[in-house]
């Protein structure tokens, strides 16, 4: 397998890491999108056989670098976090379908929860480059888990909520989704835990604003071989399972079925 070099690995919060690697593909020649993911092997031992999907957080075309931000929660991501600058890592991607940018958008709402926040950063960067006004609602468990705040502030009007109120407002991201917040918004983009996505979809459905949700499913292959990562989608063909690694992880909110 082609391996790429780790350029930086740093802890940015309690159990959270930022890793910068040389891009496995030439970014300037590839049609990468925010919301796509990279698929990492975490060990060269075969006891961790499955790759770990981690979303693209930032792409640096000039230097052909990509940044990911991830939580070292299980054994696999813990191993990933032990890599240091100069080590190499086996990674493929960017894979899947990301967030569409929509030329006509005047103002976009991005909603991130926890480890769902990082993929929205490259999105915000790209939207901003097109002149779109951005409102970002970022939710975290607590202040010590808050990440990328300054990065978002440079691009968007930022609102923060935490479960325990230790930073920003106490509560859930959906608590902020009132009429004034969505005023003038033409697109929304959300990434975070499934209950959050469900609540966001429900809260914004009446508004008629088109939205995109980035879904999370356990993956066998990440490249469309196994049908392990499916999610229920309702579209013109009715309700059916689609592969989130290939057709997603980002889907139009109105098509996503939460069961």
């Amino acid at each position, binding site marked *: *397998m082609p391996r790429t070099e780790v350029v930086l690995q740093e802890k940015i919060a309690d159990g959270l890491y930022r890793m910068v690697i040389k891009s496995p593909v030439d970014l300037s020649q590839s049609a990468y999108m925010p919301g796509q993911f990279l698929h990492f*092997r975490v060990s060269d031992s*075969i*006891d*961790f*056989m*499955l*790759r770990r999907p981690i979303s693209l957080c930032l792409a640096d075309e000039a230097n052909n670098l990509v940044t990911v931000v991830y939580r070292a929660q299980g054994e*696999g991501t813990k191993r990933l976090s032990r890599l240091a600058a100069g080590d190499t890592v086996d990674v*493929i991607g960017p894979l899947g379908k990301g967030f569409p940018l929509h030329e006509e958008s005047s103002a976009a709402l991005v909603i991130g929860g926890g480890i769902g926040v990082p993929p929205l950063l490259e999105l915000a960067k790209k939207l901003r480059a097109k002149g779109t006004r951005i409102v970002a609602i970022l939710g975290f468990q607590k202040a010590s888990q808050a990440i990328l705040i300054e990065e978002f502030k440079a691009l968007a009007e930022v609102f923060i909520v935490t479960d325990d109120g230790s930073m920003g407002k106490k509560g859930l991201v959906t608590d902020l989704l009132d009429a004034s917040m969505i005023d003038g918004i033409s697109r929304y983009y959300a990434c975070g835990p499934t209950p959050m996505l469900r609540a966001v979809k429900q809260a914004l459905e009446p508004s008629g604003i088109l939205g995109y949700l980035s879904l999370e*499913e*356990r*993956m*066998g*292959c*990440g*490249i*469309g*071989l*196994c*049908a*392990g*990562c*499916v*999610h229920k989608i309702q579209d013109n063909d009715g309700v*059916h*399972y689609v592969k989130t690694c*290939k057709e997603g992880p980002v889907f139009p909110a109105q098509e996503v079925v939460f*069961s």
Partner: protein
Amino acid sequence: MTLHDVDLAVEFCGLQLKNPVMPASGCFSFGKEMEMFYDLNLLGAIVVKATTLEERMGNPTPRIAETPAGMLNSIGLQNPGVEKVIRDELPYLRRFSSLPVIVNVAGTMVEDYVAVVHRLNDSQDFDAIELNISCPNVKCGGIQFGTDPEMAAEMVKAIKEASNRPVMVKLSPNVTNIVEMAQACEAAGADAISLINTLIGMQIDVEKRAPLLGNGVGGLSGPAVKPVALRMVYEVASNVNVPVIGIGGIFTGKDAIEFLMAGAKAVQVGTANFTDPYAIPRIVDEIKEWCAAHGVKHIDELIGAANPMSRRRG
């Protein structure tokens, strides 16, 4: 000896394979996804995802769990149904000039298995059938046919009668006596035996205090099962005359050679494709390198090399 002097070609069921390595069913979809990685002509043959009469949704998620040196899956035969497979999937594979195509057939009762085969008979876009009587992931996925020798024989007989192409039979390892199963299939007319399908397993999500997979149980695959697969291939190759195809935990050329030496005529690679999309061409290269380093001119020299009983047969 150089790599160039090594001949890896094998033949079974009348199929000519340029090398003995093919993807295992369900681990390579219908092949299209691999375009971005390599030319499918590098494969010895291709085995596509299990195909049933009607479209199947498959099981609820999560469908995947990682286990030590292995994984559990509970996909549950999700597939678009034989009609769409013939129309949308198989024709694509014919653009690869030297790629035998094997269709994995699954179902619930003899009747719907036979109906799939009848429908397939009209297609020119495949070369053999792999009869899947071993999927552990669906209540009515044919696994009862995979655990009872008489039912297996009945099924094989019906499929052989229905099919105008060779029929391989894929066996489940979840049985007391694998030889008895293989012999029943051989007697009923199977042209080849492939094994193993997955072992039935489970993982518990201790935080949720429930089985992790949506379906409760799933099929165990990967290097963890290799010793079981090798033992079964060895036993079956010692006791049947038709070709045996070895499957289970193959990640390296050396793994593949173990199966060939145990008596397999060819091998299938499943889970390794997930860990390493380039697994199959890499395994082919590794086999070739091993042969060159060991003065093996033709892969036939290795087949059954560790299993004298298999060499006296087939």
